[in-house]
Structure formats: C-alpha cells, structure tokens
C-alpha cells in the first residue's frame, strides 16, 4: 500500500496527491511517470510525476478526474492509500541549456510540464512559460511555475484570467515579435500539442510533446501505447513519453485513445450510480 500524505484540489476535478513511494522518489527524473492501481479490481493507469522528494520518500501526482479510475483517485484523501504505485517509468526529459526554452502547459498538463520547467531553469535556460486553460479556475500551479520562470503568460479561452486566447496565440506572438526561441516543450490535450507543433514547424524550432496513450504495464511488455513517430512504431512507455512534436502522428494517437470510449462511459456510469456525489468536485 502506498500512503497518501497530502491531498488537495487545485481546480475543479483536479487533485494533487503526495504519495509515500520511496523507491520512486529516489530515482525519479523530470518527464517520468508512475502507474497506479487504486483497488484490487482496478485498472493500471499511468500518471506523470509532478514532483518528488527523495528525503521524505514522497512523489506528487496531479490527477484530473475524467474516467472511473481517476475520479476514484480524486475521492481519496490524506491517510488513504493507493494499492500499487510503480515507477519511475519512461525516459527522462532531455534537459540542457538550449538558450531560451518555452514551456507550455495546457490544463492539467501544467503539472507535467512543471518539473521540466524547473529542470530547464536549473540547466541555465531563459524559461518562458505559457499556461493555458478554458477559464481562470482551471489554471493550476501558476505560482509554482511563476517562481521557476523568467516570464510567465496565462491564457484563458474566455479571458477570465490572464489574456484571452490560446497558448498558441501567445506562442505565435512571441515568434512574430522575433523573440529567439530555441526549444519548446508542450504538454496538454492532444489538439493543443498538435497546434503547437504546427506553430513551431515553419520556424523549425525543436519542439517536444509528452504523449499519453493507452497503456497497461508501462514497461514495454504490452505494446498498447504504440505511437507513430516519423513513420516508426514507438512505445511511449519506454521510448517516450516525450517525442519530437514535428514527427508525431497525432491523428493516430487521437484514434487509438478513442478506442475504449464506450467502455469508459459504462465504467463512469457504474461509478456514478454507486457514488451519486461523484460529479464535479470543487476545491474549497
């Protein structure tokens, strides 16, 4: 059992959990993930590690409640436990002093981009962070990201926070302003990552995205997380999760992620019938 040391909502349906997992905490590098299982009949789901502390042996994950399992995780509190936490899995982010590095986080993707932003700053980059969300309430970890960034821009679809527009609106602006950008990391919903790739493609700016395909074991064994990158089949769990955005076949990724849509809906219905209060959960 992996004890939950801290649990709090960052935004509606988005919960931060700090777990006791000493082996993971000791080895984890930015960009890596864990696979967790909530209960004995549960599924294995991959979740990116937002932070870790080797001293206390804890790792932090940020979970958006979208399906049955993530909603169940979001019902857990300090003192509860996850049944299994395995990791750290995946390759670490490639971090070096690129010069100016733009780190883009969309919604809960911010939690995944954050540790890499910290590492980028530590490596000597001038870090420009762009956070995007549908509205003000859904922007997470703004203060944390601000603390590690040289510049921070918040973009909301409805203009309720920061500036109105998409993360790509801001990225395009920076390019139009002739800002020198040497590296872009974008993590968020697939359409957002795809849009970022299209913005940086003409300028040939190296751009990295973190993919979240369907996955079972996370160690290269099942092949369920296969993604097409530059026409080659790659396994996101061992070759990724980060890939060259200009080579990723996003269409295929979207299609594969839709594969279990019906079953997922059924699972969610089951959960909502068992726990009628599982609708949107709000932070105080």
């Amino acid at each position, binding site marked *: 059992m992996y004890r939950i040391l801290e649990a709090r909502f960052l935004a509606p349906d988005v919960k931060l959990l700090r777990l006791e997992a000493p082996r993971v905490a000791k080895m984890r590098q930015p960009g890596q993930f864990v696979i967790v299982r909530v209960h004995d009949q549960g599924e*294995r789901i991959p979740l990116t590690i937002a932070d870790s502390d080797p001293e206390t042996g804890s790792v932090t994950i940020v979970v958006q409640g979208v399906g049955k399992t993530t909603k169940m995780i979001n019902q857990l509190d300090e003192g509860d436990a996850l049944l299994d936490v*395995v990791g750290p899995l995946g390759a670490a982010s490639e971090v070096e002093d690129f010069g100016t590095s733009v780190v883009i986080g969309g919604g809960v993707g911010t939690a995944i981009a954050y540790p890499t932003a910290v590492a980028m700053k530590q490596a000597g980059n001038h870090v420009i962070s762009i956070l995007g969300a549908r509205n003000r309430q859904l922007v997470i970890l703004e203060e944390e990201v601000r603390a590690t960034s040289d510049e921070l821009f918040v973009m909301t679809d409805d203009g309720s926070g920061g500036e109105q527009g998409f993360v790509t609106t801001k990225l395009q602006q920076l390019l139009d302003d002739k800002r020198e950008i040497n590296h872009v990391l974008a993590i968020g919903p697939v359409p957002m990552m795809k849009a970022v790739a299209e913005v940086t493609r003409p300028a040939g700016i190296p751009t990295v995205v973190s993919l979240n395909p369907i996955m079972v074991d996370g160690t290269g064994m099942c092949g369920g997380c296969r993604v097409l990158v530059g026409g080659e089949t790659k396994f996101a769990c061992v070759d990724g999760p980060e890939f060259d955005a200009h080579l990723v076949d996003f269409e295929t990724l979207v299609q*594969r992620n839709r594969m*279990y849509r019906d079953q997922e809906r059924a699972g969610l219905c089951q959960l909502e019938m068992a726990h009628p209060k599982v609708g949107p959960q709000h932070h105080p």
Partner: protein
Amino acid sequence: MADKLPPKQRTKIPRQAMPEQPALERARNFAEVNLGLDAAVAEKEAQRCLTCADPKCSHGCPVGVQVREVVDLVRDGDYLRAAAKLREDNVLPAVTGRVCPQENQCEGACILGKRFAPLAIGHIERFVADYERATGEIGLPEPASPTGKKVAVVGSGPAGLSCAGDLTLKGHEVTVMEALHELGGVLVYGIPEFRLPKEIVRNEIENMRKMGVNFETNVVVGKSVTIDQLMNDEGYDAVFIATGAGLPKFLNLPGEHLGGVYSANEFLTRVNLMKAYDPEHYDSPVYTCRDADVVVIGGGNTAMDAVRSALRLGAKSASIIYRRGEAEMPARKEEQHHARDEGVTFLTMHNPLQFLGNDQGLLTGVEVQQMELGEPDGSGRARPIPIAGSEKVVPASVAIVAVGTGANPLVQSSTPEINTNKWGYIQADDDNLRTSKRGVFAGGDIVSGAATVILAMGAGRTAAASIHEYLTTGDWPTAE
C-alpha cells in the same frame, strides 16, 4: 500398495486419458479445460511405468525431476511423499504438470513411447501436485542454515522462481523483484485461466514464501532501482536477471495502429491479469469480442491462448491466420486440438498484408494472401511463398498479433557493463549463466529468446547452482 506387474502386462494397460470439460461448454467459460486424473486412474497410469534402470525421462526433463521415484511412490499410493520428491527438483509442479510440452521432454524420452503411448508423466505430476494442495500438507524441503548471503532475483516468472527456490534451500536470503503488481510473470499475464488457473500459481508462490523466499512487487529493476544500487547500496551479493522476453513484435503492416488491433501480450494481459473477462467486477476494458469476428495472427502457443480466450469472450468467429500449414505450427498439438474442438477456424497458408479500418479508426478486416510452401528457409521450415492474385479480405473487428516477442531492454540499458547480443538478449555463459558483470547472472528467455516454462526453470536451476558456487568460493573466472 499395488504390486509391480511384469513388463509385458504393464504395456497392455492403455495410456489413461485426461478427462476434460466438453468442448462446446468450455469454449464459453474460463474454467480449466483439463479436469485432472483421480487417484485410481493415476495409479493405473503409474502401473504402466517400466521403471527403467536409467530413466530417460529424467534426462529429458530440463529441471531433472526424479520421475521414476515419483511414479513409484504414486503406484504405491504414497502421494504426499511423491509430491515431496517432486518438489526436490521442481518448485512449481502444479504449473509444469499443466503447461510443460511433455511430449518433447520427459514423455518424449520415455521408452514406452517407442512402441506404445508414452507414460503420461505430466498428468501424473499434476495429479500429485493437486492432491498435495488439496490436503494442505505441503512437503516443503527444509532450507540449509543461513549463509548470510543475499541474492536479488529480477523477475518472478518461471526462471526467477526456480532460481529463488534453489538458492533459498541452500541457505541464501533471496528477494524476488517483480515489475507488475502480481507475482508469476508470464504465468499470470500470459497463460490463460483455462490452461493454468491463477489460484494454482498463487498457491505455489505462497509455498515459496513459506520456504523463506522474499517477494517485492511493483519494482522495475532498471527504473525503480539499478543493479548497481542493489549490489552497492542494498547489500546484495549476487543478482539473477530473469526478465524474460516480453517485448511484443508487430508485423509493421499498414493499419496496425487501428483500434481493435492488439499484441497478444496486451490482449492476454488485459484478459488474464486484469480480468477483462469479468467486466462487472474489474475495471480494465478489452475491446469487445462479443459477437465479433476475431482473428489471431501466428501459430504458437500464445496464438492458441489468444484465439481460445477470444472465443470465451463470446466471439462469433475466432480464427487463426498462419502462413504455413497446421503441421508446421509451433504450438503444442494438444492446444491445437483443444482449439479446433472448441470451434476455432484455422486459416493456414495465409499471410496478412494489411489491416483495414473505418473512418472511426477502428478495425474492420484483414487483407490476407494465400501462400504455398517452397524450399526450407534458414529456420529449416518450408518457406512460405505468396500466390499472386489470391488476396482476399477477412472481416474482423479484433485482430491479435501473436508473432513472437523480443528482449525487454530496461535492465540492460541501465547497466551497460552487461553485454547483449545484436537482438538485445543478455549474453551469459552457457554452463554457468555468468554475464559480463561480476556477480550478475542471467537466464531464461532474456538469454535464450522466447522458449518454454520448463526450459526457463531449468535455466533458473543452473543459475542457482552457479550463484551458490560463486557465493561460496568468490571465484569469478574471466573468459580467456
């Protein structure tokens, strides 16, 4: 106690048949196909043994089970002592009694088999192990007094378990590390419930725990901890790498990324380990097979396991697509027969060309081409040659690719001093399974490539003997 019959009379007894669930009934449930012999039948079968002075069966067994002694005890009705005798060489008798390809090993070497049907050693082995389990009086061997040495075993599949068992008996402190949440490796994620109930595997592992073996789940060696950390920080004196060959191969055909196309590993993991056959109680989904056309590409045991699982999930049709003939299939004949009896269609002499999908990105069919067999190729088997103009589409909403697996690179890539060959398998000395790194041994599929449970167990035993020698002498001879 039954008297030994004269040899002539022994050969007059026919080989006793294994009772099984009726084919059409079992094709719709996940309960075990083979039901096991009862005591009277097992004793009758044991009567057939010629009690050879130099029993070939033991030589044919990769772990060297003392078959004749076990069979003698069964004929005498002393099943518990038979079980204890079995356990001296085999930590997983209830498993191997079910999944060993006995026809190529103990039974393949049985002298009776020259003129008659070979002794049903596998069935007797299973009977003995099941009998012992039912009584709860497990004849576990007693470990030697503690040596103070610690060994880490990476992977809880058959190679790892067998090595851990032997080393524990020699008095070493052994911890088995498993990446998944459940112990057993391929025994739990790969082999379906109807061929090897998980309860059997859990029971054998529980016995090993009682013997003193330690287990740690959710540890991915190479990621959660490195080999160097195990040896330098955690005080392990030796490491045995038994990570298996778990990396699925794909065909690299157009459409292989469509929804509904699985590797056999993913399909079987979802069904076996994650219990996707019971969606009422378990959350892991599997793409629906109910009333679906399912095709499995490949002709090995894994392909048979996948196609028979699909049938049990309610498939309307479940077919094997294999590019050679049925005789050339690497699967055990028993499994092929079981599959056929259950209603599996064999589309042999056909090779897939591409996967076809709809605008939702979901599989709708597989285009295949007919083959004919030509001269033997590098593998010694007849080379399949495409017949031009024979293309056709087999409708399918689920396709399972079961064309083999490769070496998982996680451990090796984190420990570059361990030499690997060009396919990524670990290089280990044939006789003592030493790798190029002092104190580190490797065996089973991660060295040999995908093989059988019992061969992996044999490698585990070889490694245990070699590790014991290293721990006792400290010798690590370097190759000339």
